[in-house]
Structure formats: structure tokens, C-alpha cells
């Protein structure tokens, strides 16, 4: 058995990334939209780890680690922002947050 071609991992990563994008575009709930971003970040992480395997380096893992930290910080701040939006508007529908426009 020769194992799995690395490109499969990469394609999986691309697919998850694109699904994250789709989630951002199609979901109306702000929290789900935010989760779609997390999905995109996860997809990128998979690429990093896969490349790390190919290059026999740990650097990609470190990158993934930092992405996780960033994601955690983003989650804290992002959810706080979502909370204030909800408090002000009583809605979590992303389409209803559109008072600033041309």
C-alpha cells in the first residue's frame, strides 16, 4: 500500500475552504456566518499540516498553532460584537444589519 496522495488532502482542504465561503454567502444567521469563517481557517490549517508532512518540517504545525490562537481571539471579540449587535437590534439576521449604505 502506497498511502494517500498528498493532493487528496489538499483537495479536501480546498473543498472545505470553498464550503466555508459558501456558508458565509448563504447563511443568514450571523453566528453561522462566523462559523463559516472558522471552517475556512480549518481548511487552511489542513493545507499547512499537509505541506508540513511533505516538507518534513514542523514549521507548518507552528503556523497552524498560531492560526488556532488567532481564531480563539477572533472568536472572543467576534462573539462580543455579535452580542452588542443583538442587544441593539434584537436580530441575528445578517441581512437586517444594513442601515449603512449608499
Amino acid at each position, binding site marked *: 500500500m502506497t498511502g494517500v496522495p498528498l493532493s487528496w488532502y489538499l483537495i479536501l482542504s480546498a473543498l472545505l475552504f470553498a464550503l466555508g465561503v459558501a456558508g458565509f454567502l*448563504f447563511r443568514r444567521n450571523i453566528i453561522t456566518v462566523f462559523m463559516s469563517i472558522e471552517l475556512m481557517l480549518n481548511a487552511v490549517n489542513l493545507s499547512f499540516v499537509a505541506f508540513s508532512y511533505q516538507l518534513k518540517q514542523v514549521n507548518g504545525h507552528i503556523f497552524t498553532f498560531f492560526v488556532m490562537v488567532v481564531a480563539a481571539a477572533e472568536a472572543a471579540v467576534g462573539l462580543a460584537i455579535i452580542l452588542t449587535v443583538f442587544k441593539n437590534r434584537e436580530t441575528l439576521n*445578517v441581512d437586517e444589519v*444594513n442601515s449603512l*449604505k*449608499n
Partner: protein
Amino acid sequence: MQHLWLIPVLPLLGFLLNGLFGRRLAKGAVTAIALGSVLLSFAWVVKTLVGLGALETAYIERYFTWFQSGDLRVGADLSVDRLTAVMLLVVTGVGSLIHIYAVGYMTHEGGYYRFFAYLNLFMFFMLVLVLGANFLLLFVGWEGVGLCSYLLIGFYFLKKSATDAGKKAFIVNRIGDFGFSLAMLLIVITFGSLDFGAVFPAAASKPESTLTLIGLLLLLGACGKSAQAPLYVWLPDAMEGPTPVSALIHAATMVTAGVYMVARSSAIYLHAHAAQEMVAYIGLGTAVFAATIGLAQNDIKKVFAYSTVSQLGYMFLGLGAGAFSAGIFHLVTHAFFKALLFLGAGSVIHALEGEQDLRHMGGLRTRIPVTFWTLACAWVAIAGIPPFAGFHSKDAILLAAHHHAPWMYWVGVLTAAMTAFYVSRAMFLAFFGEPRGHHHPHESPPVMTAPLAVLALLSLAGGFLDVPKFLEPLFPLSEGAHDFALVAISVVAGLAGIGLAALFYVVKPGLADAVANALGGLYTLVYNKYFVDELYDAAVVRPVETGSREALWKGVDAGLIDGAANGVASIARATGGLLRLIQSGNIRSYATWVVFGSILVLVAIGLVGGGAR
């Protein structure tokens, strides 16, 4: 060291003092500062020129390196050569006279200190423009005078039309500046320098196509500043400003900046024939076109405004025909008689308490005699009657035009006749016949009439200053022979114009009673001089204006002129729907655009081949 820097800095000081403290200063102090700075500057010009002597070559003072990047070094350098000397005398001399006049004219206006502060600032920039030894300093002055012109036009800012006129001037000038900046950048790329002393000697060795492009772009800039077709539209509107401003900025100095710039760049134009030819065409076209419109204006300042446009066209014709010195000569004499015309008009308006409509004037000859007699000097000067100022310079241009292409001469002569006609018409309507208004005219104070007298003298005798001879080291005199027949024809044309105007506006009314019964209908036709105007307006001006708007200037007058104002605004309106679609305020839509943008970027980068760098 001649300390050239003092020449512009003195008015700048005047601006700073009046601008910062003018509100708290007594009127007398404001006047003293404003006048003093300009007069001192004039004195310094005279002292400098005396000190410099013959000025066979340019005298340059380098103060410091303004900026340097790579090989490009631009210094804060001022230079004086014979061309600059002429311009300096005109700017500070005529400028001083107009400042003196303005003291009387503006006495009763609000914002006295502000007005003089702006006026001094204008002088500063104009002197920088003239003295700068490189294109960048020229450009600084160029933009600066535009800004001041805008401020001064909008001086009566409570009048909506004044604000609009200011805006129009600014925008049209921006179009011109676009040409100028691009030309300047091209010069940097081509010559590696912006110094006149480095660029012009090298012009001969550069490809003609590049020079032509530079020349055309400079011409675009000049057209904006000097109100040449198709960018002339702002100047007639600019007459909304106070009359001294019209005289100083929109007749004598700023609007001639384009002429100065083209003459200064003569080395480029001499090696770019197409561009020079274009200068001649635009000049001639503008001269005829503006004169045609000027024939039927009823606002006295509008008559002179169109006349200015037309005369500037003459100067460009001279430049384009290769007679740079003739163009500058006309610039000088024009500064004298046109400043006088405007100041005289101001005096008339002042006497009639703000009346500007020729149809409500008349019979002023005896009421305000000083104004009349001084204006009469300008009148004969602009009409090209020998031996007065306008005759000499106009003649030089027409001869050069004949040498260049005979048909241009004939069109020029026709324009000269029209010029003589409309100025005479204005004079007759204002000063002859019966008073038609309900005013009690009074002569202006000496502080206003004294400058008029000086300018009148200059208008009469200014032609004997042999400017072309003086400029010979810079611009070789064209070898066109002084053909007596050609001179005679143009003089006759001028006289014919005056005669025709006299017939329409003076003689006929006198003959009226005698001819009235005999001619019946025809009599009414002629008697009613406004009918002539109206007929002319309907038969000539309106078709010319509409025709040009429809055919020739459609893209320009409707698209560019009203401006980048309305034109651009309508483009903006047209894109408004698209904008609303994109800027919908919806986060998901924005994200969709981000996704699409990224797809485009990916495709674009993926498709572009890795060509050789």
C-alpha cells in the same frame, strides 16, 4: 546678488500681515500694507533691472535645492531674462496701478482687508510664475494664481452666480492643469530635468513626436489658463468678481500666463511644428469666435471679457505663427489698454451705482469726462488706429500671420474690424446719445482716475516701446517685410469697424427725423438700435453659439465645461445605480463581491504568461 526673492516675497508679506491681522487693523493701515508691498515690489523690479543692465543672457539666483530625487534636482531658483523683465514690469507696474484704483473702488465694500490680502497673494503667485527658473516653480505660481482667481471671483460670495463662476473657473483650470502636469512629467522623463536652462537647449536633440506631445499638453494647460477655445467659457463668467479683479487677473496678468508659458517654451514649439501650428489655429479660432459673440453683449464687462478672450487669441496666433516677440508685445499693450478698459468700465459702473447694462447708459460723455477721455484712449488703442499701442502689436502679429499663411492674415483683419466695432459700440452706447437710465452719475475720486490717466498714457504711447527688438536675443525677429499695403488694410478695417458702429449707434439717430418719413419701415428698423442687436443676436450669435455647441463644442461645452461639474456629476449619477447595487449595505453581498474579485484576480494572474521582465 540682486535679491530677486524680494520681488515676490514683499506681496507675500502684505498678504500675511493683512490676512492675519487685517481684521483688527484700521482701514488706512490695511491700505498702506497692501499698496506699500506692491509698490515696493515694483520699485525693486526697477532697481533690479537697472542693476542687471543689458541682460543678454539670463540672470539666475539659486537659493536652495528644493528637492532632489535620483537625478532630478529642482532648485528654488529665480531667473530674470528679457522676457521675464517685460513680464515683471507689466505685472508689478499694472498691478500697482490697479491696487491704487482698488482702494477707491472697494472703499464701501465689506471685507476690505480680505480683498487686499487675496490681491497681494495673487501678486505673489504671479511673480513666482514669472520669475521661476523651472517648470515646477512656474507650476506653483500657475496653480496659485488659479486659486486666488477663484477666491477673488467668489469674493461677492453671497451672490450664487459668483460662487458658480468661481467653481467654473476652478474646474476649467483643473482641466488645463491636467495637461500641464502631464507635460511636466513628460519633460522630467524626457529631459531628466525641469530647469529651463537644461530643458530648452536639449530640445533640438529629442524626437519630434515627444516634443509635439509635450507641446500639445502644454497648450492644453495654456488654453485653460488663457481662456482659449474650447476652455474659454470660464472667463466671461469670471466677471462676477469685483472690477479691479477683472482688470488685474482676468485681463492684464493671470490670463496671459498661458501666453508667457508658450513663449517661454518656444524652444520646444520650434521643434514641434504640429504643436505650433495648433497654437496658431486655436488662437485664430478663438479670436474670431469670441469677437463674434462680443458683438452682441449688453453687459459692459461681458463685452470686454469676450474682447479679452479674442485678444488673447491674437497673442496665440502670433506665437503660433512663430512671432513669439509679437505675441508678447501684444500681451504688453493689451495689458495697458484692457486694464484701462476694465478700470474705466468700473468707473462707469461706480458712477452709475452698479449699473452694468449698456442699454441703460448713454450720454455719459459730459457727466464723467475724465473716465470718458481716458477710456477713449483705450478705445483707439484696441481698435488698432496708428500710432497708438494696439496698432503696433496687432500689426506685428498680422504681418507674422501673413508670412505664415496669408488666409490667417485675412481672418485676423476681419477680427480686427469686429473688435473695433464692438468696442466702439460699447463706447457709443455708454457715452453718446441721450441718458437712458435713471441715475445721477458722478465722477470717480482721484484715487481711481489717476491710475486711469497713467494707463491712458501707456495705451497711447505704449506702442513705441519696441518690445520685439528688446526680445530679439530670445526670439529672432521674423524676416517678414513691413508690407505697407497689409498694414493699410488692417488700419482700414479698424476704421471701418468704428465707422460702422458710429453709423448704427450715433449717426443714424441724428438723421432719424430727416429720414424717418422717407424710409418708413426701414427707419424703424435702423432707429431701434437694439433691433440691430437683436437681429444680429438672432442671426449670428445664437447660431454661432448653438451651432458650435451642437457641432463643434458639444463634447466640450456640454461635457467638459459645465463641467467636470455637471458632466462628471452625470456620469456619477449614471453609475449611481451600479454603486447602489454594490454598496447595498448587505454583508453577504459584499462577501460575494470579495469572492468574485478573488476569482478574477486568480484567473488574471493564472492567465498572464510569464513574459520577459
